[in-house]
């Protein structure tokens, strides 16, 4: 009765009348629970089957405020249900179980539960469950403006996020935990808003959405669901529910960047914003993260990035598609910004744009750039934003730029325009917060790859890579986030994704794939990326701090041994410049890349001697070549991916490869390497 009414109103009567859905296979418990809940004056619906519960929830999202579910159920695991709810509906979910092992509780949290109760349930405990709903809602209103709030929510802290950094995608909301269910809140907001919103969120604190694997998965799932075409960030976000962090984070960052950067970016952002942003954001974030990681986690961030960007940028841009350069520079700037993580990314974005634009034209290059940016950006969205911005302007690489999402970076890559977007997406994907990306490589997997969509050339995919990469670490490339790809055109991603990725790292690919799979588009790319990454063997490593922040993450992937060195690639990010080589030579033998990388490596290289590997990469590169095509398709993502893989070692080479392929495939790794290399590698890294 009043429940409905209540709902309409601001729920002043809340918590009375709160609508709860209770799920438990044990009829005794269910009955008792229902009765207890009714005692609390909640409105209760019960079901003993998880499947039924999902059905009910799907029928009408607004029918329920809260879900309480048993952990141990015959038809579906409680955690799985939890994830679904989080992803799809973004409702708070409370877990219930007779066992309260720390491990189980932890599992619940990581899957996004906002609380864990022990059986038998006491009424006192139930009296307070409404707080979770409120918390979430709080963020919503804010989020609308801020998306970020949502992200924040993810952490179930919703409140925490509240900072709503206003839609800062960054809100990443500590996605770390990826409160999937929570995240969605933000996402719902749909950042579409055209990026502009984010303005500040980035600063807010963007909770860097940690592109956790989960997110990535979600991302990928979302992307898949949406289909690459429609993998609009928004949608993805929605799907991801949890993802809250993403779009906003990345997107916002991206937006910020863009707005800050210039209209260009705004345009891009807008463009991307819609789609990419999500991705980018993610990617951006990731990218950023990636970049960061690449950069040598933060090395770049501060001064490193700056330096790197320049070097990376320069080196790469020149040769690589400019995009990169443009991006690189921008990115670098961003990167530099990223340091501040806060939204400096936007700045870089701006920078990027100009630079990127120049370079990015080729787009591909940017990819590399973004990554770096992203790295810096880790800022999350910022990078992405920047990248995104760049993308639009440049190729979208900006998106890559958004290092945070690196995905933006990806965008830079290659056709950055869209690629960036792709990246953005990727970025978004990457969201993983590139910042964190260091390890996470900026969720990189995501965006970057996605980023590719933009330019397809780019390695946007790479962003995903980054993301992926980043995630790799965590999740390993969930980033591949198809998110980036999904929307943008994933063109690349789609195509590239799988193929490219494959080559690289089977391992990584796995991750990437994971990530990628998440991202429908990205998946393809991701897979490619993965492959690539695999190849890259994400050398996890050291991802050459140069930018390949993401790549570092990827190291996990054991990308093919070569990549191991790749981490060095990150160093290669410097070599990103070399990626230029990659661009063309991709097939050529990464050697050139390697050389390039070497160059880059030197540049940024953080000294990554690791980059050494890049040379060895060559063999990989060959793979990369394979990847490259993917990269292109990926939008650069593959490249990104590869990049990631290469990340470290080959990253540089890959970058080169990317460069070439980026354009084509996305050498991603290589190409990205150029500018993005940092990023890409990042991704790669992450992948690795």
């Amino acid at each position, binding site marked *: 009765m009043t429940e409905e009414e209540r709902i309409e109103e601001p729920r002043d009567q809340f918590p009375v009348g709160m609508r709860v859905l209770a799920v438990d296979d*044990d*009829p005794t418990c269910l009955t*008792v629970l229902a009765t207890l809940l009714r*005692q609390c004056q909640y409105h209760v619906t019960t079901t003993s089957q998880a499947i039924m519960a999902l059905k009910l929830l799907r029928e009408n999202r607004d029918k329920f405020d809260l879900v309480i579910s*048993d952990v*141990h159920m015959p038809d579906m695991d409680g955690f799985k249900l939890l994830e679904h709810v989080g992803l799809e509906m973004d409702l708070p979910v409370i877990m219930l179980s007779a066992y309260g092992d720390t491990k189980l509780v932890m599992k619940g949290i990581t899957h996004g539960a906002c609380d864990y109760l022990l059986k*038998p349930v006491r*009424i006192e405990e139930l009296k307070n469950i409404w707080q979770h709903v409120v918390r979430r809602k709080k963020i919503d209103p804010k989020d609308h403006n801020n998306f970020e709030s949502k992200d924040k929510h993810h952490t179930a802290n919703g409140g925490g996020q509240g900072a709503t950094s206003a839609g800062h995608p960054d809100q990443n909301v500590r996605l770390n935990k990826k409160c999937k269910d929570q995240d969605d809140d933000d996402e719902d907001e749909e950042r579409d808003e055209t990026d502009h919103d984010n303005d500040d969120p980035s600063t807010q604190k963007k909770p860097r959405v940690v592109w956790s694997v989960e997110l990535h998965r979600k991302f990928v799932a979302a992307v898949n669901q949406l289909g690459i075409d429609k993998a609009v960030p928004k949608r993805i976000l929605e799907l991801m529910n949890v993802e809250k962090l993403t779009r906003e984070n990345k997107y916002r960052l991206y937006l910020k960047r863009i707005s800050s950067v210039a209209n260009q970016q705004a345009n891009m952002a807008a463009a991307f914003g819609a789609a990419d942003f999500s991705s980018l954001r993610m990617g951006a974030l990731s990218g950023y993260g990636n970049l960061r990681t690449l950069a040598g986690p933060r090395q770049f961030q501060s001064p490193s990035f700056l330096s790197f960007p320049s070097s990376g940028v320069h080196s790469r841009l020149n040769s690589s598609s400019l995009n990169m350069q443009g991006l690189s520079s921008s990115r670098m700037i961003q990167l530099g910004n990223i340091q501040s993580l806060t939204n400096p990314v936007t700045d870089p974005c701006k920078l990027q744009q100009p630079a990127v634009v120049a370079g990015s034209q080729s787009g591909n290059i940017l990819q590399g750039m973004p990554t770096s940016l992203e790295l810096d950006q880790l800022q999350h969205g910022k990078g992405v934003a920047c990248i995104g911005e760049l993308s639009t302007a440049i190729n979208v690489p900006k998106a890559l730029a958004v290092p945070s999402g690196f995905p933006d970076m990806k965008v830079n890559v290659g056709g950055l325009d869209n690629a960036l977007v792709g990246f953005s997406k990727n970025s978004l994907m990457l969201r993983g917060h590139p910042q964190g990306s260091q390890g996470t490589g900026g969720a990189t997997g995501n965006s970057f790859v996605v980023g590719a969509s933009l330019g397809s050339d780019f390695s946007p995919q790479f962003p995903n890579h980054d993301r992926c990469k980043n995630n790799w670490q965590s999740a390993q490339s969930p980033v591949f986030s198809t998110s980036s790809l999904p929307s943008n055109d994933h063109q690349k991603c789609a195509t590239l994704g799988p193929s490219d990725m494959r080559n690289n790292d089977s391992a990584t690919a796995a991750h990437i794939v994971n990530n990628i799979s998440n991202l429908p588009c990205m998946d393809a790319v991701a897979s490619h990326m993965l492959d690539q990454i695999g190849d890259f063997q994400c050398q996890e490593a050291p991802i050459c701090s140069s930018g390949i922040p993401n790549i570092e993450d990827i190291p996990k992937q054991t990308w093919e041994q070569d990549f191991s060195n790749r981490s060095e690639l990150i160093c290669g990010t410097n070599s990103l410049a070399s990626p230029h080589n990659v661009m063309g030579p991709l097939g050529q033998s990464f050697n050139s890349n390697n050389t390039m990388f070497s160059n880059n490596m030197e540049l940024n290289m953080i000294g990554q001697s690791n980059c050494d590997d890049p040379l060895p990469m060559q063999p990989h590169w060959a793979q990369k070549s394979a990847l490259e095509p993917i990269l292109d398709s990926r939008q650069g993502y593959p490249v990104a991916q590869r990049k990631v893989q290469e990340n470290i070692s080959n990253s540089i080479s890959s970058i080169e490869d990317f460069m070439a392929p980026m354009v084509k495939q996305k050498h991603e790794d290589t190409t990205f390497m150029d500018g993005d290399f940092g990023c890409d590698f990042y991704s790669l890294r992450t992948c690795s």
Partner: protein
Amino acid sequence: GYLDDQFVQLEELQDHANPNFVEEVVALFYKDSSRLLLNIDQALEKKPLEFTKLDGYMHQFKGSSSSIGAKKVKAECTLFRDYCRAGNAEGCMRTFQQLKKEYATLRKKLEAYFQ
């Protein structure tokens, strides 16, 4: 005693709107748990014992019994689970017998209570 606070809480839940709440819940519990017990019995006959499955059953059983506040039964459940985890077949069997005894006792008592 055989029942703990939970049961008390259940009783508190019973009101004019729900006059037979407790009785209903208990009846539900017995219905559900008989089934479970049967499953466990059967599982225990299989050799070698499938501890995972047993653990699962016991988890459920524990949940139910704790919902109605069957303290002793619940304790046996925990014990049973421990044995399962340890892979101690002998211990499992023994505990289960004990559990069944407790369960039967409780049932009798509750029936009397409701008369």
